[in-house]
């Protein structure tokens, strides 16, 4: 393995003969979901391999699918570094701004899609697993606030 100009040795190493660069990151700074997101963007032009390096680090190996020299590997490593940072930071921003992003997105799709037609309702599989509903939108008011539902018509109990 060789060092690449300007890249921290031990964190970024290259196998120029194989056309591969290895980047090792701190998993507390770059959580695995962020590494997935960054790595996936390289799948078209690289073979991408992920591994653990001890308990606290993740190793990313990018092997170029086409011939590449040291400068090319350096650029690849630099691009991956930038994408890792963007992915990690985006994850954090999304966590903090989730409410705002969700409400705008839901309004956008509610507005664009409009209500389902009768044919679409008929085709919908209500026996399917319920969708993820973190804001409890699909819950009835009674379920959400634990008030008792009024008794059904004809059943015992309730006011005569």
């Amino acid at each position, binding site marked *: 393995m060789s060092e690449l100009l300007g890249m921290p040795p031990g964190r970024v190493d290259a196998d120029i003969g194989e056309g591969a660069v290895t980047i090792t990151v701190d998993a507390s700074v770059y959580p695995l979901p962020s590494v997935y997101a960054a790595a996936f*963007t*390289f799948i078209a032009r690289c073979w991408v391999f992920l591994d653990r390096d001890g308990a606290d680090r993740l190793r990313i190996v990018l092997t170029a699918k086409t011939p590449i020299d040291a400068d090319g590997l350096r650029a690849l490593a630099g691009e991956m570094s*930038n*994408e890792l*940072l*963007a992915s990690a*930071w*985006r994850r954090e*921003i*999304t966590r903090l*701004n989730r409410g*705002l*992003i969700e409400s*705008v*997105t839901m*309004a*956008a*799709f*509610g*507005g*664009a*899609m*409009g209500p*389902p037609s009768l044919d*679409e309702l008929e085709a919908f599989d209500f026996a399917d697993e319920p969708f993820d509903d973190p804001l409890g939108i699909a819950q009835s008011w009674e379920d959400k606030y634990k008030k008792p539902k009024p008794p059904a018509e004809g059943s015992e109990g309730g006011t005569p």
Partner: protein
Amino acid sequence: MTAPLQVLDTRGYPAFFRFRELGERVVVTSIEGEWIVLANDEFRAFVHGEVDPTSELHRRLTERNLVRTSFDARRAAEVYRRRKRFVHYGPNLLIMVVTLRCNETCVYCHASRADLDAVHTDMTIETAERTVDLILRTTSPHVTIEFQGGEPLVNFPVVQRVVEYATEKNRGLGKQLEFTMVSNLSLMDETKLAWLLANRVQICTSIDGPKGLHDKQRKLPMLSAHDAATPWIARINAAYRDAGLDTTLYHVEALLTTTKETLVRWREVVDEYVAHGCRALFLRPVDPFGFAEKTRRIVEYPREDYLAYYRRAVDYIIELNRNGVEILERYAAIFLTKILTGDDPNFLDIRSPGGAGIGQLAYNYDGIIYSSDEGRMLGAMGDPTFAIGDVRTSAYRDVVGHPTIRAMAIASNLEGQPDCVDCPYVPYCGTQPEHNHKTLGTMMGRMRESSMCAVHKGIQDYLFEKLATADAETLEILRRWTTIRPREHFLQNAGE
């Protein structure tokens, strides 16, 4: 012995804000898009919460909802809601690529043109009707069908059928329906023009500058593309005048694509537009789709060069306005409308979330549906990422609710985007997932490396500098550029 409790005077504390330094000044915006430009010492006092509550500066900050103790959350929410009201409606711009055949070859063409004998790239009547059926399912009360190509005049019978069919179907729906056509005008004749005028189809064309520049970039075999187009601009504008229409409002719209050659000829380009009676000039930079990729080295340029050109050109346009020539620059008008009026003109590439799929759709000649024209261009280049349906088989809700469109809506929401989230221009700005995908490898992109971000940021820097330093006359000119005058003549069924 206890010390007396010190009471903090929080009357000068700032509410949530974002900022950007512009030389000796700082642009500050609130979460809902209120703004102020401060001198450096004013900004320092603002940040430290040391603005004198009795001062003029405090009054200005309070007026703009930037002071914490007087922050009006309800007002902020109302302003924010108003800016985002476009999200409640579905696609309003529907592009129909009626053919890929074209008689011109343009260096930056992002239409993946085909030769005139490639009749298999004509949209059929059946595909066109199915497309219209799907288009009119939109939840938007306003629909603009835009004919593109290739050159739409090559497949004029389908253009005619679409106008006829859509107008008829819309009678039962009551949408505000308009048609526009983007044409190089070289195949126009009096018969076609009479029909287009009678059926109130708006006409847009491309003018790249004076004849030499235009013809160098837009090749028409044996002829001058400039000479083939410009007489028709005059002819159409005269027809509007003869019909009693206000030509300050009704005239041929022209589009510009800025190439490397254009950068040094900004004055000639503006003069050319003025000479043809154009009231708007859109200084669009070249994009990375289509033929432009192959000829990138010839037409492309660093965005710093583009921004220098932009500043010179718009300064000149403002100067012309001072001399009574009414012409605006479209980018500036879009951003100024958002900045000065709190409204959003719903330009689909400059909004958050972006318009791909939920504000616009592109229907290709073969019936394949794309998120946008840019998505269609990537499809023509072999990348089907943004293909989201087929008019023969897809239901409307499946198209606009497609997983790709959902991903794009999230990717183009600037409140989730690194860099944007700290940028003061976030209330006014937008990104394009297709552009990010093409240039940066992901729909999300990385704004620090994005040429589109560089353009948007640079233009807004220029505008805020003007807003902070320009004289009253210039400010009034810029304010006039935000005036939206509806063009009701082009509404189908108008008056019914």
